[in-house]
C-alpha cells in the first residue's frame, strides 16, 4: 500500500482531537425533530416496502473510498440512491453537522460519528434511536465495550460500530535488543525499561507521550479501570477524575516518567514526531489498533523492524486494555427516510463483504467479532512487522478491553480543558497530579455553567 492511502485511511479512525483540530460546536438545544423514528419496532414488511421505494439518502463521512461499500448496498437495494459527501474530517465535519442541525435543514440522513462525540449529539437529541429497526439483534456480534459505545447511558442504540482502536504497543525489536531491554509485561517493567533504555542511549528514548493527548490518556485510564465520567442522559453528569483510583494511579505513574526526563513529551502527528519514528528517536509507540497501518505509511524506512505487543499491564493475571479512537455510523433524527437510513448504516458495517472490505482495504480495525475472527482478516501477516500477524494481536487485545467506560456529553470541551491543564503539565514536565485536579475543577465549573448537575 502507499503512504498516501495509509495516512488517509487512518484519519478515519484517529481521534481528531489528537491532530490539533478543534470542533465547532455552535449548538443549542436540539430543535425538536420533525421526522424522527417510531417508538415501536418496524416490521420486516415495512422494511421491505421502504427498501423498494425510490429513495435518496445523503451520507456524510470521511472514510476514504467508502463508495465501495455503498456500491454493495446499492447493488442489493437498487431503488435507494446514496450520495456520499465528505464535508471535512473531524472538526469541520462536526461543525457543519451542528450548523445543519441547528438550521433545521441540510443535515444528512446517515453520518459518521466517533465514539467520543456520540454522547454530545444524543445530548442534543439529534440522533435517531435505532432500536425499532432491529439493530439490537446485532448486540451479540460485538464485544461488550463496543456495544456500550453506541448505547450511551444504556438508553437506546445510536449508531452502528464502524471501527475501533483498542490500545497496544508498537516497538522496535532491534532497538530493544540493542539496549538489552525485553518487552515489558507490566507497567513496573515498563518504567524499568524506560530507565534502562535511556541509560544506553543518550539521544533517544523508549517512548514519547504527547501533550494534547486526552483521547489517548482516557484509554489508559480505561485500561486501569478508571471510570471517571458518566451521564444520566438528561442533566446529571459525574466528573470524578480525582476520586477515581484508576485515573489517579495512571496520572501518578506518568508524572514520575515525565519528571525523570526519560520519555519524550513532544506533540504527536507533527513533522518532528514523524521524523522521530523514522530515525529511531523513540523505540515504542503506545497506540490504538489503527496505529500499525499508520506507522507503516509514516516510518517506511524502518520496515521489518517493528513488532506488536499488548500494553504493559497493571495486573498481569487479568490483561486489560482501553480504546483509543474509532467511529460509528449514526442516523439523524431529521431523516425523512429513517428505514433506508438505518439499513444503510447497518449494511455497510455488518454485511460480510462490506465489513471485510472496510477492514482489509480501508484498514479500519473492525469492531465486530465476526470480522475479527474471519481468517481473511486475522491471518494476514505484515512484513513491516517482520511477518507478525498484527491483526490477530490486536484482535486478542480487543477481547481484553473492559466495559463501562463513558465519555462526557461535552468531550470537545474536555479535550481542550485537558490541553490547558494536563497537556501543559506534560509539556512543561510539571506536576501532573496537580494538573489532574485542575482538569477536574475546570470540567466541573464548565458543567455547572452549562446547567448540568454534578452527581457525586
Amino acid at each position, binding site marked *: 500500500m502507499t503512504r498516501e492511502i495509509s495516512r488517509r485511511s487512518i484519519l478515519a479512525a484517529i481521534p481528531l482531537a489528537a491532530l*490539533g483540530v*478543534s*470542533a*465547532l*460546536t*455552535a*449548538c*443549542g*438545544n436540539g430543535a425538536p425533530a420533525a421526522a424522527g423514528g417510531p417508538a415501536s419496532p418496524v416490521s420486516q414488511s415495512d422494511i421491505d416496502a421502504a427498501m423498494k421505494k425510490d429513495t435518496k439518502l445523503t451520507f456524510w463521512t470521511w472514510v476514504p473510498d467508502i463508495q465501495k461499500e455503498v456500491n454493495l448496498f446499492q447493488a442489493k437495494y437498487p431503488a435507494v440512491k446514496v450520495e456520499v459527501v465528505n464535508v471535512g474530517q473531524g472538526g469541520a465535519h462536526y*461543525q457543519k453537522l451542528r450548523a445543519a442541525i441547528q438550521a433545521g435543514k441540510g443535515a444528512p440522513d446517515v453520518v459518521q460519528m466517533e465514539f467520543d462525540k456520540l454522547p454530545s449529539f444524543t*445530548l*442534543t437529541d439529534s440522533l435517531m434511536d435505532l432500536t425499532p429497526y432491529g439493530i439490537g439483534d446485532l448486540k451479540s456480534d460485538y464485544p461488550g465495550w463496543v456495544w456500550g459505545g453506541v448505547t450511551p447511558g444504556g438508553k437506546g442504540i445510536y449508531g452502528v460500530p464502524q471501527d475501533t482502536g483498542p490500545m497496544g504497543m508498537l516497538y522496535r525489536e532491534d532497538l530493544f535488543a540493542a539496549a538489552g531491554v525485553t518487552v515489558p509485561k507490566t507497567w513496573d517493567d515498563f518504567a524499568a525499561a524506560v530507565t534502562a533504555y535511556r541509560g544506553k542511549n543518550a539521544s533517544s528514548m523508549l517512548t514519547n507521550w*504527547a*501533550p*494534547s493527548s486526552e483521547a489517548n490518556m482516557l484509554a489508559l485510564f480505561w485500561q486501569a479501570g478508571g471510570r471517571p465520567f458518566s451521564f444520566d442522559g438528561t*442533566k446529571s453528569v459525574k466528573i470524578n477524575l480525582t476520586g477515581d483510583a484508576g485515573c489517579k494511579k495512571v496520572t501518578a505513574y506518568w508524572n514520575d516518567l515525565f519528571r525523570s526526563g526519560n520519555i519524550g513529551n513532544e*506533540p504527536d502527528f*507533527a*513533522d*518532528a514526531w514523524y*521524523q*522521530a519514528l523514522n530515525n529511531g*528517536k523513540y523505540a515504542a509507540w503506545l497506540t490504538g489498533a489503527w496505529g500499525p497501518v499508520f506507522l507503516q505509511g509514516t516510518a517506511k524506512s524502518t520496515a521489518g523492524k517493528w513488532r506488536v505487543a499488548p500494553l504493559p499491564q497493571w495486573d498481569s493475571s487479568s490483561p486489560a486494555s482501553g480504546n483509543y479512537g474509532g467511529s460509528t455510523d449514526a442516523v439523524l433524527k431529521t431523516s425523512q427516510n429513517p428505514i433506508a437510513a438505518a439499513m444503510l448504516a447497518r449494511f455497510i458495517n455488518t454485511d460480510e463483504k462490506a465489513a471485510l472490505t472496510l477492514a482489509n482495504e480501508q484498514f479500519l480495525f473492525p469492531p465486530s467479532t465476526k470480522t475479527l475472527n474471519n481468517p481473511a482478516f486475522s491471518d494476514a501477516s505484515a512484513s513491516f512487522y517482520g511477518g507478525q500477524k498484527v491483526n490477530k494481536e490486536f484482535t486478542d487485545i480487543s477481547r481484553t478491553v473492559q466495559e463501562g467506560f463513558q465519555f462526557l*456529553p*461535552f468531550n*470537545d*470541551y474536555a479535550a*481542550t480543558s485537558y*490541553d*490547558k491543564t494536563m*497537556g*501543559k503539565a*506534560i*509539556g*512543561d514536565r510539571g506536576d501532573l497530579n496537580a494538573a489532574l485536579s485542575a482538569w477536574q475543577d475546570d470540567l466541573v465549573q*464548565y458543567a455547572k*455553567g*452549562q*446547567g*448540568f448537575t454534578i452527581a457525586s
Partner: protein
Amino acid sequence: MTQQTRPPLQRKTANVAKRRQYAAAYTLSMPFMVVFILMIAVPLIYAGYLSFFKKQLIGGVSFVGLDNYGRALTDPSFLGGVGRMALFLVVQVPVMLGLSLLFALVLDSGMLRLQRFIRLGVFLPYAIPSVIATLMWGYLYGKDFGPFAQLAKALGLPAPDFLAGGNVLFSIMNIVTWGFVGYNMIVMYAALRSIPAELYEAARVDGASEWRVAWSIKIPAIRGALLLTTIFSVIGSFQLFNEPNLLRVIAPAAIGQDYTPNMYAYQLSFVNQDSNYAAAIAFLLGIVIMAVSYVVQLTANRKEKES
C-alpha cells in the same frame, strides 16, 4: 450680492445637477453599501444581540443583560490575551515599522543598486499567505530538524528552543514582522515618491545632508502614511489568530487556546458551545482596538499641532 440677484431658473438647474450627482454617487456606492450592510452591519448587530443572552446545554437560552461583559472583564483568559497582545504591540509594531521606514528611505534615496530586486525581495513575504508562512517558520523553528537547531548542533551549542513558553511570543513577532515589513514599506515608499523634488533641491542648496533630508523633510512629509500603517498594525496585532493557532500544533504547552483574544473567542464559540459569551468577548476586543487606535491617532494629531 450677485448671488442673491441670480435668477431663480439658474438656481434650479444647479440643484438638478447637484441632485444628479448625488444620485450617481449613491448608485455607484450601492454595491458596497449592500454588501457592507449584509456582511458587516447585520452580523454585527446580531452578534451584539447575542451577547446579551446566555445559552446553556441544559436549560436553554435566557436574557442576562450585561452579565457576559462583566464576566469577560474578570476573565483571566481574556485579560491575559489582551495583555499579551498589548506586549506584542509595544514590541513588534515599532520594530516592524522602523524596519519598513528604513527600507523605504534607503530605496527612495536611490543609492542602491538592484533597487527593484530588493524592493520585490522585501515585499515578497507579504505575498505568502500567513498560514503557509507559519508552517514554514514552524519548520525553521524546529528543535530537532530545523536549520537553526542543526547549525547550533554543528557548532556544539545547545539548540535554541524558539517554541518554549517564554520565547514563543517573540517567535510569532518575528513571523509577523517578516510578513509585513514589505507591505508597510510599500505604503511608505509610495508616500515618499509623492514628495515634490523641489523640496530636496532646496534642501541641498542649503547644504543639507541625505540624512538631514530624510529626518527633516521626508519623515515629516509622510506622517500620514506612518499613521496609517501604525493604525493598521495596531488592529492587526490585536486580531492575531493564524500564526499562534497554527504554532499551537507544535507547541501546545506554550500556546494555550486562549493565547490571543481572537483564539479565545473562537474556542468559546466552537468548542465550549458558548457563542453568546464569545460575542461579548469579540465586542470588547473591538472596543479595545478602537480605544487604542483612537489614542494613537490623538497622539499623532497633537504632535502635528505642536510642530
